[in-house]
């Protein structure tokens, strides 16, 4: 399909990466290497992961993972219950292949 202005690019399945916005409790900082091992449960970490943002005040972060690793990362985050002997829990707030979508969350609009 051509618009009057010229060509267009359309992304479909498998846009190459997904972004996670997560919050976690009782853990101060994720060491990337440890995270990979903890998250995948494998001795040799298999999923390269980027921590794009980290906010200590809200204990929240934005992660980047290749789309093929989306399900593994999400399930690992859900099942991860402790770190260095301390109990912790991860809550996945938003997931999208569009980082711009993570800059706002309409479900957080509070009017009461």
């Amino acid at each position, binding site marked *: 399909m051509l618009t009057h202005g010229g060509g267009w690019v359309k*992304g479909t399945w498998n846009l190459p990466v997904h972004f996670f916005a997560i919050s976690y409790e009782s853990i101060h900082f994720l060491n990337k290497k440890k995270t990979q091992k903890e998250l995948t449960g494998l001795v040799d970490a298999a999923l390269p992961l*980027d921590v794009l943002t980290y906010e200590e005040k809200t204990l929240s972060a934005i992660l980047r993972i290749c789309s093929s690793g989306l399900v593994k990362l999400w399930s690992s985050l859900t099942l991860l219950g402790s770190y260095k002997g301390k109990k912790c829990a991860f809550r996945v707030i938003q997931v*999208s292949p*569009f980082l711009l979508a993570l800059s706002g969350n*309409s479900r957080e609009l509070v009017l009461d």
Partner: protein
Amino acid sequence: MATLRRLRETPRHLLVCEKSNFGHDKSRHRHLVETHYHNYRVSFLIPECGILSKELKNLVMETGPYYFVKNLPLHELISQEFINTFVKKGSCCALTYNTNIDEDNTVALLPNGKLILSLDKDTYEESGLQGHPSQYSGRKIMKFSMEESVMMSYFSNYQIQEHQPKVSLSTVRDLQCPVLQSGELGGTPEMSCSALELFDWLGAIFSNASLNNEPNNFISTYCCPQPSTVVAKAYLCTVTGFILPEKIRLLLDQLCHYFDEPKLAPWVTLSVQGFADSPVSWRENEHGFRKGGEHLYNFVIFNNQDYWLQMAVGANDDCPP
């Protein structure tokens, strides 16, 4: 097995990019802005800008108000008085508050006067209305967006609150910005970045990601797409609330006029995010929430009046128009 396979799959999303010129007769920019009804967040970025012009600032401060009405029975929205007072005059939008489109009953009023009810099976059967099944699988609290303050007196029998959108303004120094060429949507190696790279970069800016990618940075490998230039300062503005399409159209028009006088900036951007729980995205295209309820669009406005438009939707959405 099929369920397992489906659970392992990455849900499909769509990003449509197009380019045109604001002066072109067939340009769809106005129509696309005006038919994206339920807008939660509007942001713009202006490189090489330290102070916002008076016109832009006024527009930003006048994106509201919107109204929050508690315990509003739905029949009020189809009363003749409501239709005459608000619906027939146009520019009246409403959306149920704190209802998740994938779990709860949701109601939306569109500016064209249509009332969209997204109901679960039991409510649908009780209602006795005729509808069609969702493509993708009360006494309600509503939020309204309206031009006039007559809303306050009309709903005085209910708990109504007036809200102003939240505005956040900031200046960023020494920002690495991608180099773009308006005629090259896909980018050119070594010469310009693509629309997709720009779209992700904008997300990083508005999410406050630092894109240093220094050699000792093992935390993130994400960095500004290349080629890029460093701008001394850039102005960022974000407005969140329940924002009418008309207000966004005025902002877009004003940003187009930004280049009426010569400016250092080669382009500016305007990004709009819809409510994740709106039952529609553009026009009456069904919108749903699978793993995310994103429906957003972004304009890149060039100094020669060319523009790029990127429209992105999630898994439970029709293709953008």
